[in-house]
C-alpha cells in the first residue's frame, strides 16, 4: 500500500506543540503557504479540466452536491439527539462536517501521486462547490423556527470572497485558461514544489492542532467518537457514489475524502458570523483536533482500501 511521508510533518508539528518546543512558523509564512496551496490545487485542477469535456459532468455533479447537502442533515439529528448538543452547536458542527477541507484533499492528492494514480480534474471543481451547500444547510438548521435575522449578505461575502474559495476558483480559471500547453513555466513552482511546501504547511497545522488536541479533553467522549465515526460513514457514501458514477479509482478516493473531511477554515468563519451563538471551540476542536489527524493518518489509506476493494469486486 502507498505510504505518503508528507503526513509525518504533521506529526512532527504535533509533537513540537505538545512538548512546548519553541518551534514556530512565522504567521506571514503560514499565510503565504496557504495562498500557495490554494492556488496550486486550483491550477492543477484547472489544467486537468482543460483536458476534459464539461457537459457530461452536470448530472454527476448534481448527485455529488445532493449527497453533500445530505451529510449535514444526517449529522444534525445525531448531534442533537444522541449527543445532547444545543441546536446552534449541532447546526454549526453539521456545517463543518458537511463542508470540506482543502488540506485533507491535498494530502489525498499527494497520496495518489505517490501511488501513481490519476484522477479527474473536475474533482477540484467539486472541492470548491462542496464547501458551500453544507454551510447554507447548517445556517438554515440553526435558524429554522427561530426569531432573529441571519446575516446572509455578510455570510455569503465571507464564503465567496474569503481567501479559500476565491483563490481556488481563481487558480481553477487560470489553470483552465492556460491549459496543458501554456502552463509550462509555472510547473516547477505549482506542481514540482507542491509536496515540499505541503510538508511545511502540515508542520504548522500540527502546531495548531496540538493546541486543539490539548483543549479537546473537555469536550467529552461523544464528540470524539462522532469526529471519527462520521467521516468514515461519509467516506462510505463517497466510495459508493464515486463507483456508481463511474469515476476512476483516484477520483473516488478524492470524493470519499471530500465527504469525510471537515472544514476548519471556511466553515468557522461563516458560522461565526451567521450563527454566533454556537461555540466555535467545539467545532474547530472536533474538526481540527480529531477529524483532520484521523483523516490524514488513517482515513485516506482506509478510504483508498475501501474504494480499491469495491473496484476489484465490482470491476
Amino acid at each position, binding site marked *: 500500500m502507498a505510504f505518503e511521508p508528507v503526513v509525518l510533518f504533521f506529526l512532527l508539528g504535533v509533537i513540537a506543540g505538545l512538548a512546548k518546543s519553541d518551534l514556530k512558523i512565522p*504567521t506571514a509564512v*503560514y499565510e503565504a503557504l496557504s495562498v500557495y496551496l490554494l492556488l496550486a490545487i486550483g491550477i492543477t485542477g484547472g489544467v486537468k479540466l482543460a483536458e476534459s469535456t464539461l457537459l457530461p459532468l452536470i448530472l454527476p455533479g448534481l448527485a455529488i452536491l445532493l449527497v453533500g447537502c445530505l451529510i449535514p442533515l444526517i449529522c444534525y439529528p445525531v448531534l442533537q439527539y444522541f449527543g445532547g448538543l444545543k441546536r446552534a452547536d449541532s447546526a454549526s458542527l453539521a456545517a463543518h462536517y458537511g463542508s470540506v477541507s482543502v488540506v485533507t484533499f491535498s494530502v489525498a492528492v499527494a497520496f495518489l501521486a505517490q501511488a501513481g494514480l490519476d484522477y479527474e480534474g473536475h474533482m477540484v471543481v467539486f472541492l470548491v462547490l462542496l464547501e458551500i451547500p453544507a454551510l447554507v444547510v447548517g445556517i438554515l438548521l440553526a435558524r429554522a423556527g427561530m426569531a432573529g435575522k441571519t446575516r446572509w449578505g*455578510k455570510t455569503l461575502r465571507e464564503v465567496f470572497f474569503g481567501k479559500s474559495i476565491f483563490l481556488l476558483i481563481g487558480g481553477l480559471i487560470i489553470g483552465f485558461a492556460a491549459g496543458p500547453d501554456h502552463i509550462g513555466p509555472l510547473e516547477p513552482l505549482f506542481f514540482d514544489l507542491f509536496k515540499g511546501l505541503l510538508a511545511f504547511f502540515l508542520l504548522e497545522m500540527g502546531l*495548531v492542532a496540538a*493546541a486543539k488536541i490539548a*483543549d479537546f479533553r473537555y469536550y467529552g467522549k461523544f464528540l470524539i467518537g462522532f469526529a471519527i465515526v462520521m467521516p468514515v460513514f461519509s467516506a462510505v457514501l463517497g466510495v459508493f457514489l464515486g463507483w456508481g458514477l463511474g469515476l476512476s479509482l483516484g477520483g473516488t478516493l478524492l470524493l470519499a475524502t471530500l465527504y469525510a473531511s471537515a472544514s*476548519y*477554515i471556511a466553515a*468557522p*468563519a461563516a458560522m*461565526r*458570523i451567521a450563527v*454566533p*451563538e454556537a461555540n*466555535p*471551540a467545539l467545532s*474547530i476542536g472536533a474538526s481540527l483536533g480529531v477529524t483532520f489527524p484521523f483523516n490524514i493518518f488513517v482515513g485516506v489509506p482506509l478510504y483508498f482500501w475501501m474504494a480499491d476493494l469495491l473496484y476489484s469486486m465490482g470491476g
Partner: protein
Amino acid sequence: MEPDKYLLTIVSESILEDRMIDEIRELGANGYTVTDARGWGKHGKRRGKWQQDSNIQIQVVGSRELCEAICARLKDQYQADFGLLLLISPVEVKN
C-alpha cells in the same frame, strides 16, 4: 477639570473588524487605529495564528458621549456571543 478627550479601547475577535469599524464610523468617530492582538481570557487563549484564533484592538479618541455611544452599541451587538473588552480612559491629546 473634566478632560475633553477620551480614549476608547476595544479588544475583540478579528472577524468582527469590518463590522465594528462600520459602526464606529456610523456613530461619528473622526478616526480609529486597529492593531492585531493576542491574549487569554474568558473565551480561551487567542493565539493570533489565524483569523479564527486572533484578536484585534481598536482605539478611538473622541468625546465621552461618542465613546459611550460606541460602547453601548457594541455591547448590544456583540457581548452575548463574542469576546469583547471595552475600556474608556481620559487622555490628553498633545497635537
